[in-house]
């Protein structure tokens, strides 16, 4: 293991002209900087119609009558379709997984039939020549509702007097998990101190800059459905569209080009997108749906919204004796299909206490149905919650016994030499580097210097705080995540590479690109393992007719899984090409190599044959090759993690900020993150994943909150009232790295996409509390930390 702020030296990967560990620019950026990308919202097809939806204004209501005569004759209208009619072409779905034992949900339809279960659920579709005409006609649809009692507060969702949302499933409990490891009660009883508090995490959402978008094109002549879809997982969606339309998978093609942000928002089944696909089948023409901003706020999955009662035991020497949590989360009226809405709570239970050696841990998590928009997996699923709870407890405990928070961590983090190791919750860690990461952070931020500055400024009435968050991160998921639960979400991925007739490589991969840099990483792996300059590699993603079957891009899997498949495919094609070169040059293939696009002698590197010449012969003059020799200029390889269910990564973040005790405003001064994602393929892309993730986490800590009233009405469904991080309020973010490769793959790369979002909210929370501690404020544990909450904690309002 070593600090790797300079490109790492990687013996196994150290091919001549290797691009592994180099910050090369992404190959697909110019079309985006020139405004020449192709997002689904940019695509138009012949005879394409547009759909707009009439959506329920109530959190829970019976649909008594839909009067659509006026809408049907409005200008441009092609069809007005309600739930019952759409049910003739598409079957409903239920979001359950068998490995989350006991998880239950009710059937969900693309358009509500008889009953709407949250404000924003579609109750009727209007299809017209233009979106504007469709929206005009939506105004003419008269829906008679009978309002029903709504379940709004998760705290009372399971009470006997609370109405049950779905009669078919007996109660409002979606999922429950309990865990009791070690001797928790005894540990608390024997502790020198016990700290107990309640953490709240506001419901928030992804706010992708491009809203969800889909165009479905049913060709009745071909009996094929082509779907242009802004999704993270084309093959998963191919399966689901086919399944619920009653088609075979090969009758559905999902095409995904540019996607304007995803963050886990675009990896789920959305009723309005399913409805759009069903409408195309019904109307036998292309239908387009692009969510507008209010639709995004009331139908894009929300996340977090957890209330966690939490407790930590500690001894005077700083040792943590036990953790205990009780998590309650309200997920809306349906568990989201197909990944379910039980995963976030399950992750919270799994991840709490994860970085520490403490053997005693008790957890309860309850996931309940409510009549609000659905919740599901969003960037860093469960991590920001588990990290903030764990790290919040850690810093409260350190303060309680008067120990420096970094020293407190040093005494409890799993030692770097203790791996392989297992957490109290049962997570298996191949190799982590908590202590090395902490030491790197300590020196990177000049911790001692900052503490001195903080002390001096306090004397001048300036209140600055330093907060930390150590974390672990789930990446490279194996079939243990979804496959074992019965979902057709593949954990393996593939790459197919072909040498074209001029010696360039065309790569098809099952991972997808929404800006993370997957195409660049695939190109770097391929160029390095095969042996061509990067500009000789073209990567194709997002086409279920043409790419290998793959999972797409989520849970930080594109580099670690897709990259390894590309690396192996490149090696396989190199072997094939050297066979051809051997035949042409009358040399042994094992004595040759490919470097910089030229076949060379492995020893000495003397140039023997350019690839374009080899390709010319293989494609156009195969008659000159030895009799019986067949050139194979395409290779495919797949990869799936097998030795470990997940490739855990780790890291630590620090936040430095200033709180104004008169206004409650928080000014972020600087943020640091040291992270260990194993082999770094492209340092710049890793850093930018971290920086973007940190800011997404800061949004959760300070600004973002989907606010609902007691009738289940979302109060701030627009970007003026729902605050997101903007440039002026954000700090510069410094990144550092430790490198502990996974031995599960040749590349050794783990994921990096969740790290920033995982640790930022906890570190900001701890920094705010550190700043306010001398003022005697009650610790703040209710995110987002808005100025009014800070002033309340200070007793000023």
């Amino acid at each position, binding site marked *: 293991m070593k600090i790797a702020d300079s490109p790492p030296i990687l013996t196994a990967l150290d091919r001549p002209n290797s691009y592994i560990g180099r910050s090369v*620019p*992404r190959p697909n*950026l*110019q079309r*985006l*900087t*020139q*405004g*020449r*990308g*192709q*997002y689904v*919202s*940019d695509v138009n097809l012949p005879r394409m119609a547009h759909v707009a939806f009439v959506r329920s204004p109530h959190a829970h209501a019976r649909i008594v009558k839909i009067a659509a005569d006026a809408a049907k004759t409005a*200008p441009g209208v092609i069809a007005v379709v309600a739930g019952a009619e759409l049910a003739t072409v598409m079957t409903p779905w239920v979001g359950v997984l068998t490995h989350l034992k006991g998880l239950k949900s009710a059937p969900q339809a693309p358009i509500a039939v008889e009953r709407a279960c949250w404000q924003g659920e579609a109750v009727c579709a209007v299809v017209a020549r233009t979106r*504007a*005409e469709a929206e005009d006609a939506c105004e003419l649809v008269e829906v008679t509702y009978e309002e029903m009692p709504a379940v709004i507060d998760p705290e009372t969702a399971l009470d006997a007097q609370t109405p049950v949302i779905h009669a078919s499933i007996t109660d409002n409990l979606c999922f429950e998990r309990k865990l009791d490891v070690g001797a928790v009660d005894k540990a608390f009883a024997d502790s020198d101190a016990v700290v107990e508090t309640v953490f709240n995490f506001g419901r928030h959402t*992804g*706010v*992708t*800059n*491009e*809203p969800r978008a889909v165009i479905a094109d049913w060709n009745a002549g071909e009996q094929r459905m082509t779907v242009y879809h802004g999704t993270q997982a084309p093959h998963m969606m191919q399966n689901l569209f086919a399944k619920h339309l009653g088609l075979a998978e090969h009758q559905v093609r999902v095409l995904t080009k*540019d*996607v*304007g*942000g*995803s*963050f886990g928002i675009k990896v789920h089944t959305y009723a309005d997108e399913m409805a759009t696909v069903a409408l195309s089948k019904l109307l036998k023409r292309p239908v387009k749906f692009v969510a*507008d*901003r209010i639709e995004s706020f009331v139908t894009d999955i929300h996340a977090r919204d957890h209330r966690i009662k939490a407790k930590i035991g500690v001894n005077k020497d700083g040792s943590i004796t036990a953790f205990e949590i009780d998590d309650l989360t309200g997920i809306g009226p349906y568990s989201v299909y197909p990944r379910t809405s039980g995963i976030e709570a399950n992750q919270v239970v799994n991840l709490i206490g994860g970085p520490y050696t403490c053997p005693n841990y008790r957890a309860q998590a309850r996931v309940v149905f409510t009549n609000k928009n659905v919740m599901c997996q969003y960037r860093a699923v469960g991590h920001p919650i588990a990290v903030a709870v764990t790290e919040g407890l850690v810093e409260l405990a350190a303060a309680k016994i008067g120990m420096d928070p970094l020293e407190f961590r040093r005494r409890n983090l799993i030692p770097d030499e203790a791996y392989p190791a297992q957490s109290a919750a049962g997570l298996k860690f191949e190799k982590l580097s908590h202590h090395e990461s902490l030491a790197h952070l300590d020196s990177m931020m000049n911790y001692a210097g900052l503490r001195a500055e903080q002390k001096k400024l306090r004397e001048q009435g300036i209140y600055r705080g330093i907060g930390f968050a150590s974390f672990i991160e789930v990446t490279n998921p194996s079939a243990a995540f979804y496959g074992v639960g019965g979902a057709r979400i593949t954990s393996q991925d593939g790459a197919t590479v072909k040498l074209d007739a001029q010696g360039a490589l065309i790569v098809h991969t099952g991972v997808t690109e*929404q*800006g*993370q*840099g997957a195409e660049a990483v695939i190109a770097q792996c391929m160029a390095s393992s095969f042996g061509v300059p990067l500009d000789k590699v073209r990567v194709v993603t997002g086409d279920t007719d043409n790419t290998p079957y793959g999972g797409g891009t989520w849970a930080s899997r594109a580099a670690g899984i897709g990259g390894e498949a590309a690396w192996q495919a490149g090696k396989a094609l190199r072997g094939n090409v050297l066979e051809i070169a051997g035949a042409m040059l009358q040399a042994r293939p094992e004595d040759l190599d490919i470097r910089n696009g030229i076949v060379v002698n492995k020893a000495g590197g003397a140039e023997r044959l350019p690839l374009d010449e080899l390709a010319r012969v293989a494609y156009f003059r195969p008659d000159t090759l030895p009799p019986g020799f067949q050139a194979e200029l395409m290779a495919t390889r797949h990869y799936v993690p097998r030795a470990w269910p997940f490739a855990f990564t780790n890291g630590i973040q620090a936040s430095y900020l200033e709180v104004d005790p008169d206004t409650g405003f928080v000014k972020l001064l600087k943020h640091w993150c040291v992270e260990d994602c194993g082999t770094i393929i492209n340092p*710049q*892309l890793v850093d*930018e994943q971290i*920086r*973007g*993730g*940190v*800011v*997404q986490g800061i949004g959760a800590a300070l600004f973002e909150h989907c606010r609902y009233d007691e009738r289940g009405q979302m109060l701030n469904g*627009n*970007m*003026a009232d729902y605050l*997101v*991080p*903007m*440039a*002026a*309020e*954000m700090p*510069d*973010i410094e990144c550092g790295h430790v490198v502990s490769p996974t031995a599960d793959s040749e590349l050794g790369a783990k994921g990096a996409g969740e790290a*920033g979002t995982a640790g930022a909210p906890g570190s900001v929370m701890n920094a705010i509390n550190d700043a306010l501690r001398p003022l005697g404020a009650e610790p703040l544990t209710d995110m987002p930390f808005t100025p009014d909450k800070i002033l309340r904690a200070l007793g000023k309002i």
Partner: protein
Amino acid sequence: MSDHALEISLTVNGEPVNERVEARKTLVDFLREDLALTGSHVGCEHGVCGACTVRVNGEIVRGCLMLAVQCDGAKVETIEGLSDSGAIADLQSAFEERNALQCGYCTPGMLATAQDLLARGGVPTREQIREHLSGNYCRCTGYHAIVDAVEAVAQVRAGEKK
């Protein structure tokens, strides 16, 4: 809807345009739907996110807060025009080299806004850059790389760096 349509004449990226548009149509919808200039993006549709930022008579405006009919007689420049003219080639290169974009959806608006700041000359501080870009939402980058790219171009344009 034809009762509410008007004839407009304007220049878009140097080309004369004569179209009949609905009075209610926003400038960004007109650019995207009528002229197929899809580089200007629609994000929030109420003037907060800046994805639709374009230049009208030299000033940056929100394409979702201006109606197409208000642009009668105006000179409109979009990302396609700014790209082809070479006016922001250095800024585009800096964004690419610094990975100051991920999904790229905010980028056309971000570039137009950054160019607006850089055109004032001098080398702005990081705080001034952040302040000027504060009306352009980026969910992917966390802004740090964008500030780096804009700062680097300002330094080169001012002759401080090559």
